[in-house]
């Protein structure tokens, strides 16, 4: 079927600006992704799935420029003992990175990985699965054109987190990164991500969590305010596996974070959480799709957004419970704290259930700061600013508490405190 003309034109223009990496083990997956992309076309303003977020700057042939952050605050996770993998404007920096060696994990660069590789069976596969029932063209584009990324195969419990650290150094950089994580049976790993990868950033992370394995992901998107990011996480969960991801976003004119998880093994656990702090020209979109296709699985989605000075927050979250996915325990909450009347929160929570013995709940709220709570704190001597900050941190606490590791929780809260303090001046 032919695409509508504007979509065809936009897609052609974008593709003309890109080169398909040739050869190597990933070539068939890339070609297949390109064909899929050509069939669906890039997202346009009229697409239902992009109703609340304008895709134009994400799909434009050329990336809008973004000023590079000028500030000297220390980076998040700096104090955490971790294996560092550094990218500058989407290009791996071997000098700044640690040797890619750690017990119970194999790490390789996508751009390096020669010959047959375990990743061949995975690269683009979870992304392709995640294209139904809703199309995610930017992810297909990523699979086809990714220039770099990290491939990790986890075979046991990894002793320290693996950290992907992104630096944005050019005002016009346009990066496409594709990471693949395969956690084998009994494996367990924590992956950290921080920093703005480029002026415009398209990232996909595919995560296959085998039976009894665990994957923990904590991400901080901050600093550069003008950068634009479209990210996807595609995950498949085996029996009795655990998948937990948390994202903190402070600043950013445009962020679209999609998380697509399929629970395919019984007794699996999936937690997806996020907190964002938006001030002014800030648009943040969390789009989540969780599919229950096994018995007795638990999924939680917890999203909190603090918005002010005209910032916009979006949440599109769905739980799909397939026939036979009995004893599913699904929970979804999305809440916004609107600190003024100019800010807005747009939420589309959805449940679609085809099994008859499940417990699913969802809720979405928008509200101002609790005046009674504020007065109570002030009556005990807390100045208004400190009291408001305390209540703001309290508001996002439910999401932050989804992070299992308490010291990483503190890292995240520390970031939020610093952000609030800077805003208070």
């Amino acid at each position: 079927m032919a695409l509508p003309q504007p979509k065809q034109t936009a897609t052609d223009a974008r593709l003309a600006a890109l080169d398909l990496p040739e050869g190597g083990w990933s070539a068939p997956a890339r070609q297949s992704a390109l064909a899929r992309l050509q069939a669906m076309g890039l997202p346009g303003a009229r697409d239902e799935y992009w109703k609340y977020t304008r895709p134009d700057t994400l799909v434009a042939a050329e990336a809008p420029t973004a000023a590079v952050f000028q500030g000297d605050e220390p980076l998040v996770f700096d104090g955490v003992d971790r294996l560092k993998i550094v990218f500058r404007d989407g290009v791996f920096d071997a000098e700044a990175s640690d040797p890619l060696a750690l017990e119970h994990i194999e790490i390789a660069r996508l751009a390096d990985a020669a010959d047959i590789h375990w990743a061949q069976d995975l690269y683009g596969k979870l992304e392709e699965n995640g294209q139904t029932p809703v199309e995610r063209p930017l992810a297909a584009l990523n699979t086809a054109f990714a220039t770099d990324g990290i491939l990790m195969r986890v075979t046991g419990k990894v002793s320290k987190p693996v950290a992907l650290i992104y630096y944005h150094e050019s005002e016009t950089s346009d990066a496409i990164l594709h990471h693949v994580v395969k956690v084998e049976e009994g494996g367990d790993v924590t992956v950290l991500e921080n920093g703005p990868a480029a002026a415009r950033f398209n990232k996909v992370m595919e995560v296959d969590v085998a039976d009894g394995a665990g994957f923990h992901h904590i991400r901080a998107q901050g600093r550069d305010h003008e950068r634009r990011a479209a990210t996807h996480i595609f995950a498949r969960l085996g029996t009795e596996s655990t998948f937990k991801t948390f994202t903190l976003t402070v600043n950013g004119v445009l962020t679209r974070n999609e998380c697509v998880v399929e629970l395919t093994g019984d007794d699996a656990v999936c937690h997806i959480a996020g907190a964002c702090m938006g001030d002014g020209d800030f648009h943040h979109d969390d789009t989540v799709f969780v599919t229950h296709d096994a018995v007795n699985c638990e999924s939680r989605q917890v999203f909190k957004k603090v918005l002010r000075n005209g910032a916009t927050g979006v949440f599109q979250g769905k739980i799909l419970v397939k026939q036979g996915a009995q004893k599913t325990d699904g929970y979804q909450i999305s809440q916004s704290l609107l600190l003024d009347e100019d800010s807005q929160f747009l939420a589309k929570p959805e449940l679609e259930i085809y099994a008859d013995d499940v417990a699913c709940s969802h809720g979405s709220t928008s509200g101002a700061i609790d005046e009674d709570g504020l007065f109570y704190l002030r009556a005990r001597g807390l100045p208004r600013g400190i009291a408001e900050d305390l209540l703001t941190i309290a508001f996002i606490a439910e999401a932050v508490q989804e992070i299992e590791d308490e010291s990483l929780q503190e890292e995240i809260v520390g970031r939020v405190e610093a952000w609030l303090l800077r805003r208070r001046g």
Partner: protein
Amino acid sequence: MLEIKNLQVKLEEEDKQILKGVNLTVEAGKVHAIMGPNGSGKSTLSYVLSGKDGYVVTEGEATLGGEDILEMEPEERAAAGLFLAFQYPVEIPGVGNMTFLRTAVNAQRKARGDEEMSSTEFLKVVREKAKSLKIDAEMLKRPVNVGFSGGEKKRNEILQMAMLEPKMCILDETDSGLDVDAMKLVSDGVNALRDEGRGFLVITHYQRLLDHIKPDVVHIMYDGRIIKTGGPELALEVETQGYAHLIEEEA
């Protein structure tokens, strides 16, 4: 300590006069009680003194240690030494009780130009005071008032009072929702704070609380005014005869 002169207050949202000229002086070292039927303006008085939004002072003044408090922000009044024990302590999910207490203590110290309390010192003091109020470590760790029983909330108010060491304490129906044992515990907590330099204003419906916290002066409030002032015997009179005859006398 606390001096209120001809205080007149109306609601901000509607043209309704709540306080119609309250005169009251609480001296340092004394316990004053205010009793009165529902809707007489007792709680409004406590809120106006502590600086809650929603009220407009149309006339009169209130000073604490000679300082006009009505123009101050709530946190400035707290730093000046005013403390309100809430009738309904507010639940604050996500804020740990201990964090809250330490932030409050240090915010007040900072506002007064005193040195902040170190965390070791704070911990030592809070544990000691919590113990006498039978507040366990678990309760200190939990979010402020969340999941607390009525009695626990009121004990928590008294703990805050003990930590903040205010000059002037207003207790707004601290006995409501308390069983006999909890009332004893709370009253003991209050009595332990009685001191020559500290004034108390105890708002209550019942004589019962005043058996434990013995007042020096009792006021009867009705329709936004104090209509009668007397000694502890006035509370007993209310307990046996109700308010009706006092209101009639006034009319």
